[in-house]
């Protein structure tokens, strides 16, 4: 039971990280393809990223090592389901609005593009 809870907690953390990375990637593409970017937004994102990654690593390590007692399974499940519903809606909304970006980016691989 304890192992199962730990597994779910780690999966939850991994999913959070995946969503964070997805949003971050989208934000970068939009920034790179925009004719003007605001320093405030970019620094805010950098701050959030550092904050998230630091906290993520600490929590993940403590869960993995078994130092931190895990929340009860039902609490964890509620947390995940409540969160995923909200996030899904948010991602869908953003995804639709960024469809244009995806279309532009899907042309030759933008990442590591070399002009030669």
């Amino acid at each position, binding site marked *: 039971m304890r192992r199962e809870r730990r597994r779910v907690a780690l999966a939850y*953390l991994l999913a959070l990280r995946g969503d964070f990375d997805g949003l971050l990637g989208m934000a970068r593409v939009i920034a*790179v393809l925009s004719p003007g970017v605001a320093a405030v937004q970019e620094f805010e994102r950098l701050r959030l990223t550092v904050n998230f990654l630091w906290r993520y690593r*600490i929590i993940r390590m403590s869960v993995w090592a078994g130092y*931190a007692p895990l929340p009860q399974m039902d609490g964890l499940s509620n947390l995940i389901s409540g969160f995923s519903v909200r996030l899904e809606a948010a*991602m869908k909304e953003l995804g639709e609005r960024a469809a244009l970006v995806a279309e532009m980016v899907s042309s030759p691989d933008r990442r590591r593009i*070399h002009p030669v």
Partner: protein
Amino acid sequence: MVGNFTFDRLLWSITFLLNTELVVLLVYRKNHRVFPFFFIYALLNLFQGIVLFESYRIWGFRSTVSMRVAWSVQGLVTFARAVAVAEICHRILAKFRGIWGLAWRLLFAAAAFISFYAWTVSRGSWPFAILNLDRGLELAMATVIVLLFAFARYYEVGVEPAVRTVAIGFFLYSCFRVLNDTILEGWLHRYATLWNLLGTLSFLASMLLWSWAFRRTQPATTFETGLLPEDLYRTLAPEINARLRELNEQLRHFGHAEGKRT
């Protein structure tokens, strides 16, 4: 002593030949049109070699005139190098207009801050003034290159291999000069001969890197990308940041939930 002098001259000759080869290579591969400021820098380097050689020949290695000539030309070359570094930054980031708008201001601010810092923490006496200025500029260039790579990595912007090699050459040389200027300041007289020798060696290494980078013709323009409508960023960026903040909150909440149960 004679042996050292001969070795110095040998190194100097090799550097001069490599510099000539670099200038010829730049013209032959038509890269002087693609990197005009780098080309000017390479030409000035060549010019510096000739001027130094002649001034040492006429006035001697330890004369005041030679020293003044050497530092004046060095100032010109350092300025040209700073412009060449700016050209590299422009080459990598300018195609992304928005990012470039942010990056050049940041890089410029960082360079100005580092130069100012290096100037204020260094000794104020006049004999060290040029040395301090030189170190400040070199430190600023090294910092700008590190920030440039950090920027490129953060935004996942591709850097052409040749441009990367050129930037690494600048970075290594600048770092070495900072180190050397710092040591030279401490043990000025004892260290002068070795300083010249090591400086030549580091320059030789950078020259090899640059020659390698420009062994092929570089494209005149880098990949041009279509830009998004102006308002898309303004509406989406704050929203994405809000979602990221939410994810952060979620993580904090999860951590606290664990903490409470502890």
